[in-house]
C-alpha cells in the first residue's frame, strides 16, 4: 500500500513538474520518445523554483535548448533529493541522450550516477557539484565557483572595515543545509575574514534560501543579538526577507546593519540601488547556452574540460544603478 502511495506521489510530482515546466518539448514529445533519431534529447533535473535566481536559470536552460534544437525534458525536484533521483531514474528509463542536473545536496549521488553510466548516458552537472570521489560518473561540471563568491564577499568586508579597530559583529544566513553553495560560500567567506580576529560571526543559521525563512531567522537574530554590524546572506532572497525584519526592528538596512548578499537577481539589485543592500557578489544563472554547447560536444565525442566556470562580477550600489535597467532576471 505504502509503495503504491509513493508511486502515485512520484508520478504526480513528475506530472506537475512537467506541466509547470511549460512547452519544452518541441515536437509535443510523447513521453517515451528520445534517443535513436538525430535530435538530441536532454533530461534536466532542476532543484526547484526556490528563488528568482533559480527561475532565471530554468528559463535560460529552456530557452537555449529551444534555440539549439535540443528536445528538453524538464523536472522540478522541489528541493528534495528523493524527487531528483526519481527524475534522473525516469530519464534513464526514457533513454535520453544526455542528463544534466543541479544537485540539491552534495552527497548521496553515486548509485543513481552509476546507473546512468551503466546505461551509457553522459551526465553534466550544472551550478552545483557533487562530492563523489569517482570523477568518471560525470563528464563535466558547469557552474560558478562558490568558494570564490564567498571570498569576494569577505574581501569587500575586510576593505570596508580596514580602519575599524573594534569588533565587527557579523550574522550569517546560510543556504539550505548541506548544499554546495551554502557550504562553499560559508567556507570562502570564513577563510578571508578569519585572517583578522576583529571579525566575529556571532550567529549563523539556515534560511533555506527563501524570503520567509530569511525574515524569520533574522527576526530571531535581532532579538538575541542587540549589536549586529553586518549581515552576510547566501542569496538575495534571504537578504530581502531579512531587510523587512531589520526595518521592523526600527533599524535602517544598509546603514545600521551593512548587508552583503550573493546572486544579483533583479529584486536584489533594486534593493542594492535603493541603498538597502551594500554589496552583491554576482552568481550568474544564465548558463543555458554554455550547457547546450557542452552537451553537443560531449555527444559528438569531443573532450571537454572537467570544470567550466561561468563568468561573474560584483556590484556596488553605484554599479547596481547603472546595471539595473538592462538586468534580464
Amino acid at each position: 500500500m505504502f509503495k503504491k502511495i509513493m508511486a502515485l506521489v512520484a508520478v504526480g510530482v513528475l506530472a506537475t513538474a512537467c506541466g509547470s515546466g511549460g512547452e519544452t518539448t518541441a515536437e509535443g514529445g510523447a513521453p517515451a520518445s528520445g534517443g535513436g533519431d538525430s535530435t538530441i534529447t536532454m533530461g534536466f533535473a532542476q532543484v526547484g523554483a526556490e528563488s528568482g535566481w533559480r527561475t532565471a536559470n530554468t528559463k535560460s536552460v529552456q530557452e537555449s535548448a529551444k534555440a539549439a534544437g535540443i528536445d528538453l525534458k524538464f523536472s522540478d525536484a522541489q528541493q528534495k533529493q528523493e524527487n531528483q533521483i526519481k527524475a534522473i531514474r525516469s530519464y534513464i528509463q526514457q533513454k535520453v541522450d544526455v542528463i544534466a542536473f543541479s544537485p540539491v545536496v552534495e552527497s548521496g549521488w553515486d548509485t543513481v550516477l552509476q546507473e546512468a553510466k551503466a546505461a551509457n548516458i553522459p551526465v553534466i552537472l550544472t551550478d552545483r557539484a557533487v562530492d563523489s570521489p569517482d570523477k568518471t560518473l560525470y563528464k563535466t561540471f558547469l557552474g560558478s565557483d562558490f568558494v570564490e563568491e564567498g571570498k569576494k564577499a569577505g574581501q569587500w568586508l575586510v576593505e570596508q572595515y580596514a580602519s575599524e579597530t573594534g569588533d565587527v559583529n557579523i550574522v550569517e544566513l546560510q543556504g539550505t543545509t548541506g548544499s554546495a553553495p551554502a557550504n562553499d560560500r560559508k567556507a570562502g567567506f570564513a577563510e578571508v575574514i578569519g585572517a583578522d580576529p576583529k571579525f566575529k560571526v556571532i550567529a549563523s543559521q539556515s534560511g533555506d534560501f527563501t524570503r520567509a525563512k530569511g525574515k524569520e531567522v533574522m527576526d530571531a537574530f535581532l532579538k538575541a543579538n542587540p549589536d549586529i554590524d553586518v549581515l552576510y546572506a547566501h542569496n538575495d532572497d534571504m537578504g530581502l526577507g531579512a531587510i523587512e525584519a531589520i526595518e521592523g526592528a526600527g533599524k535602517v538596512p544598509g546603514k545600521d546593519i551593512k548587508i552583503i548578499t550573493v546572486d544579483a537577481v533583479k529584486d536584489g539589485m533594486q534593493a542594492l540601488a535603493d541603498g538597502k543592500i551594500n554589496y552583491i557578489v554576482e552568481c550568474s544563472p544564465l548558463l543555458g547556452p554554455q550547457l547546450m554547447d557542452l552537451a553537443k560536444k560531449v555527444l559528438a565525442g569531443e573532450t571537454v574540460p572537467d570544470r567550466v566556470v561561468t563568468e561573474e562580477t560584483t556590484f556596488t550600489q553605484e554599479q547596481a544603478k547603472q546595471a539595473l535597467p538592462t538586468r534580464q532576471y
Partner: protein
Amino acid sequence: MKRLAWPAGILAALLLVNLIFTDHFFQIEIKDGHLYGSLIDIFRFGAPLILVALGMTLVIATRGIDLSVGSVVAITGAMACLEISTLSSQDSIGGVLGAIGIALGLAVALGVGNGFLVAIVGIQPIIATLILMVAGRGLAQLITDGQIITINSDPYKLIGGGYWLTLPFSIIIVAVVLALMAFVTRRLALGLLIESVGGNAEASRLSGIRSHGLLIVVYAFCALCAGVAGLMISSNVSSADGNNAGLWIELDAILAVVIGGTSLAGGRFSLGGTVLGALIIQTLTTTIYSIGVPPETTLLFKALVVTIVCLLQSPAFRAKVFRSRRKPAPPTVPAGEKVTVRT
C-alpha cells in the same frame, strides 16, 4: 483542563530554557508604535500554523486528516498576489479585498472538493487529500508561472506583517477565529456533532445527524483556515512563492494537533490544546535560532524534543516511568497513538 497540563508544562519548559540561555528573550518593548520582542515573534510567525492546526483539529476530530493544507496555503497566497499585481493601484483597499475574496473563495472550493471526495465518494481522507497535496503545488506554480510574484501593497501587508492597536494583525485574526470556533463548537451543538461523526459516522447518521454535509463543511472550513494562513504567509514577505509557501505545514499542523491531545482516532478534540501544540512548535523553532543550535543538527534537535514531548504525552509511558512515585491510575484515554512526523 487537566488534559492541557502536559502541553502547557512542555511549553513552560521550553520558555524556561530560553530564560536561561537567551538574553532579552522575555523583553517586550514598543517600537514604531507596536509591540516588539521574541514572544511577539513566536505569535507572529506561529499565527499561520495555529490557524492551519485549528482547522486540522476539526478534520481529525471526524477521524479524518487533511494533507492538502500546505498546497492550499501556496495556492491562496499565489492567487491573492497575482490578483493584486494586476491592480492599477496596489494600495486600493477595494482591489485588495477583491483579491482576498477570490483567493479565499478558491480555498473553500478546494475544501469542498476534499469533503466531497471523503463524504460522498467515500475515499479515505489520507488519499483524498493527498491528491490535492500533490496537484495543488503544481496548481500554485501554474498560477505564479513558476516565478516569485513580488508585490508592494500596504493594505495586503497588514494581514501577515502589519500591526493594529500595537498587536500583530495576524494574532488578532487568530484570536477572532479561535473565539468563533470555541463558541460554535462548545456553546452550540456543532462540536458534539463533529465528535459523534468522528466516533461513529454510521451510527451518527442513523441517529439523525447529517454526517455527509457536516464532513463537507469541516473540510471546507479547514481549507478556509489554510487559505487565511496562506494570505498571512505571503503577506508577511510581500511575495508569493508557489514552491515553498506552506511546504510541510500539514505535518507541523498534525503534530500540533496531536501534541495538543486530540486523538487521531477521532471522536474528541481540544482547541486549546491545539493552540498550545502550535505554540510549542513555533517556540522550538525560535529557540533553535536564538540559542544557536548549528543548522546541521537542527532536525535532530527537533526530533529529540518532539520524541520527548510525545513520550510525556503517552499515559502508558507515564504510567511505567512514574510508577514508583504514585499509584498507577487506569488510563482514561487510549494509549499514545503512533504518529510519524517531520517537523
